[in-house]
């Protein structure tokens, strides 16, 4: 049941990425290129997503527990540590180089361009490497 629910929600999320053009690296790179042919479209993706999630989370998190699971898995840390700062900076550099973040890269798998077929294994290697660091304290995000 949870597999099916996740499949459908992944599909919805992915359709959102495709409809919004967030799945197109050219679009992402032009959003990040303020001094070139700037395309501000992706700010509207953020606005739409945060508007719905901000409102929806407020309703959902009033419940004691999720409908199909025992507890809400929410991050509890509030400190801004060196790992967060360094990780975000490295992530941003990679995003700016390729125009892919993890969601769009996964939606691109089936279209099988050479770039994404190289990007995805490298991304999983990167996740693996970060998890292998000593004292790795990874959280779901």
């Amino acid at each position, binding site marked *: 049941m949870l597999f099916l629910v*996740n499949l459908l929600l992944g599909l919805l999320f992915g*359709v959102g990425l495709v409809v919004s053009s967030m799945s197109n690296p050219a679009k992402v790179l032009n959003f990040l290129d303020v001094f070139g042919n700037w395309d501000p479209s992706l700010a509207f*993706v953020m606005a739409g*997503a945060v508007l719905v999630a901000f409102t929806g989370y407020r309703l959902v998190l009033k419940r004691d527990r999720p409908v199909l*699971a025992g507890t809400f898995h929410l*991050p509890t840390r509030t400190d801004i540590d060196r790992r*967060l700062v360094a990780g975000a900076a490295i992530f941003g550099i*990679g995003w700016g180089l390729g125009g892919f973040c993890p969601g769009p890269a996964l939606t691109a798998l089936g279209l099988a361009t050479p770039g994404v077929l190289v990007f995805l294994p490298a991304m999983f290697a990167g*996740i693996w490497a970060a998890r292998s660091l000593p004292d790795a304290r990874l959280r779901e*995000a």
Partner: protein
Amino acid sequence: MTEFTPLASFIGGTLIGLSAVLLMALDGRIAGISGIAARLLPPYGDRSALSAFGFVAGLVLAPFAVMAATGQPVAQTVSSNLPLMAAAGFAVGFGAALGGGCTSGHAVCGLSRLSKRSFAATAIFMAAAFATVFIVRHAIGG
């Protein structure tokens, strides 16, 4: 050049937000794709890997669903500079795992929960990404 598409981008964004809200309501989880991707890797301690595989399968199917519904091909321009894409992929995976999230986990879900860590992470990765594109396209790319 890409065309400015505020309406389609906003609508797509609301679908992403809706998916995130439903994932929280039903499975109690943050829709952070880097975290979900990390759950595909061993060790498989609990059943969360199965739901992660489901979510990722949905993401992979999405462009085909859109193509089937609209009859149009999905526009996607990916760099064919493979060493660059390898470096980009490694940095994205490493940075997201180290920093506890990516665009979805921090910039959508985290901001929506008013998480201080997510505001910091989003500001940092946006600044790093803008700076990277500036350097690649204008400082050295010309």
